[in-house]
């Protein structure tokens, strides 16, 4: 036990590195971004085109 406490504390891994090391977080981002900005926004644009008189 005492040996453990004497070891130097491992340096904290920075936020960006933790994010880049997390495949499933990246998967979420990579699917959510285009779904929201491209697909959903685009579909809304088309759905709100007014009807011709």
């Amino acid at each position, binding site marked *: 036990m005492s040996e453990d406490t004497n070891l130097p504390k491992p340096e904290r891994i920075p936020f960006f590195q933790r994010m*880049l*090391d997390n495949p499933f977080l*990246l*998967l979420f981002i*990579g699917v959510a*971004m*285009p779904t929201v900005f491209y697909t959903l926004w*685009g*579909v809304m644009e088309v759905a709100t085109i007014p009807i011709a008189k």
Partner: protein
Amino acid sequence: MAQFRVCPDSGFYFDRSAESLMKVNAVAGVVSLLIAGILALGVILTRWQDVHLLPADLFYQVLTAHGINALIFWVIFFEIAVLYFASSTLLRSRLAAPGWAWAGFALMVIGAVMNNVAVMQGNSSVMMTSYVPMQAAPHFYLGLILFAVGALIGCFVFLGTLVLAKDDKTYDGSLPLVVFGALTATIIAIFTIASGAIILVPTFLWSVGYINHIDAEMYRIIWWALGHSSQQINVAAHVSIWYLITGILFGARPMSEKVSRFAFLLYIFFLQLASAHHILVDPGVSSEWKIFNTSYAMYLAVLASMIHGLTVPGAMEVAQRSKGYTKGLFEWLRKAPWGNPVFSGFFFALVIFGFIGGITGVVMGTEQINLIIHNTIYVPAHFHATVAVGTTLTFMALTYLLIPVLFRRALFMPWMAKLQPYVFSLGMTIMILFLLGAGTLGVSRRHWDMDFTGAMLSFDYPGTAYMMVAVGGIGGVLGVVGGAMFLIVTVGSLLFGKKLEPSAGLFQGFCGLPLADSVYNVEQPPRLERAEPVEHHHDGFEAPGTFVLALALLVCFVVYYAINWDYLSSVWPIG
């Protein structure tokens, strides 16, 4: 029973089931390329007006099959092989759920065959885009859906293998850069395939009569989330392979792990927004949506590509300089192994992708400039620079690397392999440049007859347009010759190449069977250690030659961009 073999030449560890799956997927990809290549000849020899080979119906049929086989089946089959290589071989891990991987492969093959049969039967000549309300036979869509489901399973097997490797602690630290790039490709693939399902499943139901209307504009928006993103999978995949090839050939290490990974992160965030490139002259979509999406937010994915454009050759330059090729700006490049098709294929792919494919892509994806380019033959010229050279030639280069390593065969007719990247690049570059020119003159894509035979009205293209398409045709034929050389070397190697392993029999070469049991003699490969530490010194320019090349790219980019705005400003004012 031991699960792994080690390749004595490369030191890569192959998992038995992953190895078979890589082989079958790569072979299925090459078969698709063979079909696409033969059909390419029909397309180019018909567009070339002096030859005008095929009748209209056959031309559109051939063009549909060429597009789907080249842009979907060839690249995605090969990419699945790359994903298994990156996750299992590079990480020294067992492949997760090989049974599922085989099921996925079976679905992909059934889907690809079904779709090709539908097109061959003649009532599904709807182009790769299959825009509604033009209708194809139901099994045209069903084939694509099955193929997509199979590919999706492949993506999950890749992710599962990442988890498995982490749990088994087969490597130390973060994922290697190449695997991280493959992860980027997988993420893009999952979005792509999900979009495909959202639009193709209702379209299939419409083709069998369960749904009576598919909105044409909705279809366009969602279909392009499939159609364009599928090509972004290629970008992420081939950039990763560039890092792999420079690592293997030169022992190059990334100039900065942080910069290269951050560039991939920008791809994950922004690359797929570019599906909007196809919707820029559509009715009713707001300029805000167009500008935001067509520019990948603020061209942040272009920024990523420009960064890779520096760091890929830069890593190679640093490695070469450390070996003593330090004379002047470019000795490192002059003394590169130009006779090795793995290198020449990679390097031509990099240059043509960046200088031609990248620049034309950004220019024509500019909201307003798209008005003078949309649906002209400029568009296929652009994506032949990105996919048919950038991606395809990279995959060809990797194949030359994998034939000895994965299939344990020596290259058949190595002199032909040596020449192949030169012939293919030259032919394709001629074709691309001249078709870009023809597109600027207004020549239409997907068009059987520049003479408009049988039309009630008439129109004459300028003579230059005919000349440009004809020269493009000559280049295209040369490109097909280059493609055939690749196929001769590849198929020849598998059938007749010298066996590097006594057990590498005929069928073990290409039918997906692993090598004989005796070759698998490693229970568990040693853990993949972190790279050797190096001193980080950042006082000067480590890769000045690459920096000059990057500046040359920028100058071409700026000049060409300005020329196109100038051209746009000369057409009729519209608003």
